[in-house]
């Protein structure tokens, strides 16, 4: 009997675990190690953050689902990997520390035949002074990265709305809280949902709204922007986005690195090297992501973390990490199998894998501060990669070491993305977009890097309906209800 240990139970880890359990059956063991008791459909946190959904609607308990699937569930965080075992253990193992199940604080060594690292990111609030401490959110701003954060954001938003109703003007500052952030899409959704709710509350004229982002232009989204078909034109996402911001009366500041957060104000540095201060009454700033800080040790106890993980803490996989400067970057730099080059029984998926480089053009201020978005690895690509990795591991177990590894390169897959711009059955809107491929391939598509037959976008109520239906579909799928495998990632 082989044992597959999956570190993390988010979109990618949960997908990998549930498919591995389905394909391997009772002949082998699938273990999930995740510090969380609940699964969270993160895209809907936006609606929790504006009070349009409850925390309970976007989460569910993992324990009964894993019991049903025959998955061994350990509510714990992974601390370190020993891919060669240790002086006392011949098998490779992962050291975990329990965060629940009545064993809080206890450590355990879990041996494995294969390990899938799907730990997701550490929310690195500590990277910006005042934004937070370590992975903990600070007191001056709010976040929608977790359901708890989103619930807190909703309370703060309601307080601001009440103040506006009493005649007190409010300044809303929403975007990214560091020059190296990703997930601009989530902040994009949040600012327009906040604007929609303020309008519904009848106090839009009392609100000043401003977007702040590390993107060098609006609509970069960490993907170097995109060109999509809109109304018969091929349009840059810059024009698409600027139109929406102007229409909704939202000012913007791009190419910005937030260097410090204090009560009611932030300090920032722009790509041209200038600095300034922006005041706010309500701020939602996404933190940068980092690896969760897993360590790795050799059989003799030597620290081999740098062999397995990139300096940012994400796991090295079959990517080309020696691509050099921007001019040399190619679509083929991006990983295909997500297998660790040093240990063939180790894989990474979702945010946990180290990308070869960013997608957007690298930029920094004259002071040397890097200000560019890091690549998004969430949502649909995250699920597809998780499934492909699970497929590879299952084949290695059932067909032997020579089994063909399944491939899911972000430079060859597309993504469907629906960005909410306000919730409401007949009044809501969302930007429905598809992009193909996620990572532009300028050798295959010399014009825009992508296939414009499959890259399109439009804003409307239909997009909102799709986003709402996707919420229910993915909550249904993740709970492994009848027919769950029919719902695509």
């Amino acid at each position, binding site marked *: 009997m082989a044992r597959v240990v999956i570190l993390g139970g988010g979109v990618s880890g949960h997908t990998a675990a549930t498919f591995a359990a389905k394909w391997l059956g009772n002949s082998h063991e699938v273990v999930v190690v995740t510090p969380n008791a609940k699964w969270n459909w993160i895209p809907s946190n936006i609606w929790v953050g504006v009070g349009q959904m409850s925390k309970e609607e976007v989460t569910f308990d993992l324990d009964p689902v894993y019991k049903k699937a025959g998955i061994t569930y350990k509510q714990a965080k992974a601390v370190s990997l020993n891919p060669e075992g240790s002086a006392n253990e011949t098998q490779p193992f992962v050291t975990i520390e329990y965060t629940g199940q009545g064993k809080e604080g206890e450590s355990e060594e879990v041996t494995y035949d294969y390990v899938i690292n799907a730990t997701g990111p550490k929310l690195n609030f500590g990277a910006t002074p005042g934004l937070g401490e370590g992975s903990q959110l600070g007191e001056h701003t709010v976040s929608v990265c977790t359901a708890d954060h989103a619930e807190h954001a909703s309370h703060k938003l309601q307080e601001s709305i009440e103040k506006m109703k009493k005649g007190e003007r409010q300044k809303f500052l929403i975007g990214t809280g560091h020059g190296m952030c990703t997930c601009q899409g989530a902040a994009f959704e949040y600012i327009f949902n906040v604007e929609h709710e303020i309008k519904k509350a009848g106090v839009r004229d009392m609100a000043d709204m401003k977007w702040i982002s590390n993107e060098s232009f609006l609509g970069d989204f960490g993907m170097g922007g995109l060109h999509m078909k809109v109304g018969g034109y091929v349009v840059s996402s810059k*024009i698409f986005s*600027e*139109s929406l*911001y*102007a*229409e909704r*009366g939202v*000012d*913007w500041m791009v190419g910005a690195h937030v260097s410090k957060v204090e009560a009611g104000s932030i300090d920032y540095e722009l790509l041209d090297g200038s600095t300034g201060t922006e005041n706010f009454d309500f701020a939602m700033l996404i933190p940068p992501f980092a690896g969760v800080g897993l360590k790795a040790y050799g059989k003799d106890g030597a620290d081999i973390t740098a062999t397995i993980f990139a300096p940012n803490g994400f796991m090295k996989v079959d990517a080309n990490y020696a691509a050099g400067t921007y001019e040399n970057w190619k679509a083929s730099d991006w990983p295909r199998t997500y297998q660790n080059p040093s240990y063939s029984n180790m894989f990474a998926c979702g945010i946990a894998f180290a990308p070869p480089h960013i997608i957007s053009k690298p930029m920094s201020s004259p002071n040397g501060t890097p200000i560019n978005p890091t690549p998004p690895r969430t949502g*649909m690509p995250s699920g*597809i990669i998780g499934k492909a990795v699970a497929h590879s591991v299952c084949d290695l177990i059932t067909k032997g070491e020579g089994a063909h590894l399944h491939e899911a390169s972000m430079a060859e*897959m*597309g*993504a*469907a993305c629906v960005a909410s711009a306000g919730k409401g059955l*007949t*009044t809501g*809107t969302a930007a*429905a977009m*598809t*992009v*193909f491929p996620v990572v532009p391939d300028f050798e295959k598509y010399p014009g825009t890097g992508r296939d414009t037959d*499959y890259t*399109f976008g*439009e*804003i*409307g*109520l*239909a*997009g909102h*309906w*799709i986003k709402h239906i996707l919420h229910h579909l993915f909550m249904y799928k993740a709970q492994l209800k009848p027919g769950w495998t029919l719902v*695509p*990632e």
Partner: protein
Amino acid sequence: MVKHEEVNFARNDQSNTTMIPGRFARAMRTNLIWQFIRFVIINLKMLVVVSKSH
């Protein structure tokens, strides 16, 4: 009289160089019949991209 879509052009230089949808385009965004048609079309387009990506 200034039309609704023209107001924000005057807000600042940023907004002045964008395109802002007019009354008809905004109305179509939440027009139930048109959006139902778009719902079907967008879903079909997304299914094509999803099928090419698996």
